[in-house]
C-alpha cells in the first residue's frame, strides 16, 4: 500500500517568512492533492498535481511535483496569519476504486 510521509510535522514561522512543506511517497504518485484544514474541521482543496515536474500556484502558495513523481512540496511565500492551519497531502491510488491516502499533516503556525 502507498504511504505518504510529511515533513515537518509542525512549523512555526514569523509573519512574512517563506516556508516549505514536503510530502514523500513510498510509490510513484499518480496524482497528488494538497489540502488545508483548520483544526477539527473539513478539508479545503488547494491544488492537484499529476505530471512529473508540474508546478501550480494560487496566490502565495506554490506546489510542485518532482520529475520522478515521488515527492511534492508546498511553498508559501511571505506567510500571513491566514495561512495558519494543517496542510495535508493526499495520494490518488489510481486504482479502479479511486481513493486518496493521506499523510499525517503539517501544523503551521504563523506568528504576527
Amino acid at each position, binding site marked *: 500500500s502507498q504511504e505518504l510521509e510529511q515533513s515537518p510535522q509542525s512549523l512555526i514561522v514569523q509573519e512574512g517568512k517563506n516556508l516549505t512543506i514536503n510530502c514523500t511517497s513510498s510509490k510513484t504518485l499518480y496524482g497528488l492533492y494538497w489540502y488545508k484544514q483548520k*483544526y477539527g*474541521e*473539513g478539508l479545503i482543496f488547494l491544488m492537484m498535481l499529476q505530471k512529473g515536474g508540474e508546478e501550480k500556484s494560487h496566490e502565495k502558495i506554490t506546489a510542485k511535483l518532482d520529475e520522478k513523481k515521488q515527492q511534492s512540496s508546498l511553498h508559501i511565500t511571505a506567510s500571513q496569519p491566514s495561512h495558519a492551519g494543517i496542510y*495535508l497531502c*493526499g495520494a*490518488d491510488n489510481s486504482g479502479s476504486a479511486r*481513493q*486518496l491516502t493521506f499523510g499525517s499533516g503539517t501544523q503551521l503556525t504563523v506568528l504576527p
Partner: protein
Amino acid sequence: EAGVAQSPRYKIIEKRQSVAFWCNPISGHATLYWYQQILGQGPKLLIQFQNNGVVDDSQLPKDRFSAERLKGVDSTLKIQPAKLEDSAVYLCASSFPGKAPAFFGQGTRLTVV
C-alpha cells in the same frame, strides 16, 4: 454550486451510546466516501460507495460501524456502541465516478466521553 453537506457539526456522547452522521454529496456525484480523522493524524478511509453499492469497506470496523446510501444520494454513518477511541472528525467526500475525491464536507467532530 453547493458543496458536500454534513451534519451535525459537533456531537458529544457517552461511551456505549449510539450516534449517526449524515452526508449530502455534491449534486451528480455518484461516488461517496466516509473518512475518519483522529486529531493529529491524516484521514483514513472507512467506506466508499458508488451509487447505492459499497465499493470498499475493508477498513470499516463492522462490529460497531455501519453505513448506508439507500437511494444513491444521501448517506448516513452510524456507530453503535461508541468507544472512547472513536473520538475523531468524520469527513464525507464525493466525486464523479473514476475521479478521486477532491471535495470534502466540513466534517462532524465527535467526542466520546
